[in-house]
């Protein structure tokens, strides 16, 4: 554990998703979802059979997303401890994987917008592989969360 995060350093070890019954179907009102942000723009979204949308991702440069999670706030960051930084973004716990030397686009950032509880999943915002500074990435994460940095 590193602060509020469980750093797994492994592929396939991101935070667990809440249940999503199949089959999926096209979502009509995804912009009303908690995991939608106007930063994402217009998307083609599929929802679970029970009408839930469990996460939205935009594979731009950088790739960004907002998602539900259950259990520990796992992040698959892979770096020496001195490149893992705990911080707060708009008062929420966050972790940054700082870029290695010679890797100007290597910054990753994850923010726990909401901690999971017994009756609702947590919400995590993530930004991967950006050339932005930590401050700039934090500002983007705050924008995705819809709060002031």
């Amino acid at each position, binding site marked *: 554990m590193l602060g509020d995060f469980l750093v797994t350093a492994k592929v396939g070890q991101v935070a667990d998703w809440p249940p999503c019954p199949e089959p999926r179907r096209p979502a009509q009102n995804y912009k009303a979802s908690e995991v939608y942000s106007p930063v994402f723009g217009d998307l083609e979204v599929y929802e679970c059979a029970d009408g839930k949308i469990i996460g939205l991702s935009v594979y731009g440069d950088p790739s960004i997303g907002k998602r539900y999670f259950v259990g520990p706030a796992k992040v698959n960051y892979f770096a020496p401890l001195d490149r893992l930084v705990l911080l707060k973004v708009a008062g929420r716990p966050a972790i940054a994987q700082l870029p290695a030397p010679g890797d100007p686009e290597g910054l990753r950032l994850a923010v726990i917008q909401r901690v999971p509880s017994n009756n609702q999943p947590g919400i995590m915002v993530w930004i991967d*592989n950006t050339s932005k500074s930590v401050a700039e990435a934090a500002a983007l994460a705050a924008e995705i969360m819809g709060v002031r940095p």
Partner: protein
Amino acid sequence: MKRFLVLMTAVCSGLSLPLFDRPEIVQAQTPRTDTIYFMGATRGKDYNNTGVLSWCVSRSWHESYPNGPADALDEVAQQQAVPTPPPTDDQWPAICNSDPTAIDGSGKVDLTTYGVTGPLDCSSPCISLTVRGRSFEYGDGCDYIEADLYDFVTMDDGHKVGEKKGKQRMIHALAPNSTNVPYDLPSIQVTSTGLYASNEIGTLQNDTNCKPNTNPPGFTPGGYHVHHDFMPPTGSQSCSWNQNTPANFPRHITDRQKQNPSHWVHFVSHKPGVSCFADGPPKLADNLLASDGVLDGDGNGGGTRALATGAQSSLTSPQTCITGTSWCGTISVTPPVVQAAFSNYLGLSPTDYLRAQQKRIPPRGSTTPYYWYGPDNGGFYFYVFWWMTYPDGSGYWDCGMGVPGAERYWAGFSSWTGIYTCQNGFISLGGGGGPVTAIENEWSQFRGLNGINPTAPPTQQDANTWAQTQIDSGHWADVVKPALDAVIRAGTGNMDMATLGITGDPPFDGDLGQVGLAGVMNRMNTVASRVMDLPLFDPTRADMNRDWIGSTRPRWSLTGKALR
């Protein structure tokens, strides 16, 4: 005396310095135009034993991000011939599917390219692009391989940065030992007749953890695929790109052939040695130093003064577009540009300042001299080029500095003062070779015209004091502004702007840096196509597979419709 004559000959003949035991420098020429076609990323399958790797489109062109270019294809391997009558949608997955565990290799992912350049260039292969890979998993659990493309001619191998020429991306795939750490992939080469190359870069994944907003059937057997897209560089006179026509890649089409020249997915066309943002710096100078520009501020250098005094750590322009390029966004300026301007004021040319700051190291295989000073400032210069890779048993070379497997460079110089080299002792004209540490050591002793030391620029603090003093004494327009203009205008691309502390949001090199930039992306394609006047290329008409057909693979007819 004989050596002296050789040296004199070398000086008189410019770059062609036949000195000692070292590589040949090639004269700079008019930049050629290279076009790299990216073929299917899925390995495909030779299902009918003809030697052709066949693949199918499970989803036609679609976006990877909102309002971005719809340049992503979902690609799968073709497992068997298409029956008669053609399969229904329900039957289609039995014909076309990928299996991450397939032992026939059909679950593999390749970076397959066809590189072609001008008819008078590169009769033997020329390296066009340096490729840096990155593979891991996004925060939503989706696996990826990204292949960043950099201009080979200007690549700085020391800092692993260069002028961006786009990015190929394969989602739902992983490279071996993926750790999110960038790594080198084989460079991309071109020839005048066209050159195919295919390198395995990873394996398709059972990406079941990748769940957000995906299109059914998702990642189930029959649904595994490679999402293959291209993130283009900034469009300009020197860089353009496109994707193949929708007619060639409709949903559920079969028999896309990996080696068929007309079945390319994306292409990027660029001029080696020229940044996609080459036209940008003079226009940035015009913008930033206009009477209402952020460096001017209020007509008397108020913006620059705010930077120099620390009243503002950076200045940000209003939204703007750079004409002649596809770039639109905001420009951010930070104090290093003041440092560069002061250095210019003290006598170091803007180009020398930039080169000395960057100290670019040429990549393996480069034949281009990288000037750190010069090439001719009153007869003084310092350049570095790649020489060779130290072979086995070379540990005693270069005064014991050789490291087998590491790169060996040569520094050629004409210095105001003497430089100690292990090969030639203490000299001011000539050169010395070795690993980067040897080059750095020689560079630290170099002095340019009038003994100037380009390795020791003025400090930021001194520069700030200079700018503030000059502006306060009424010398904004005749001293500070011209110096700023000179250093910005001297830039040749994104790397130079970064050295000056001038960055774009989105970045000038085409890395979007932000999402929701529909206008930018659409303009990029439009401007690039308009500027370059490039029609969608039909390589079959250009007889572009001449090199490839000499290989062990079956030949295509010139119509591209049948195997020979």
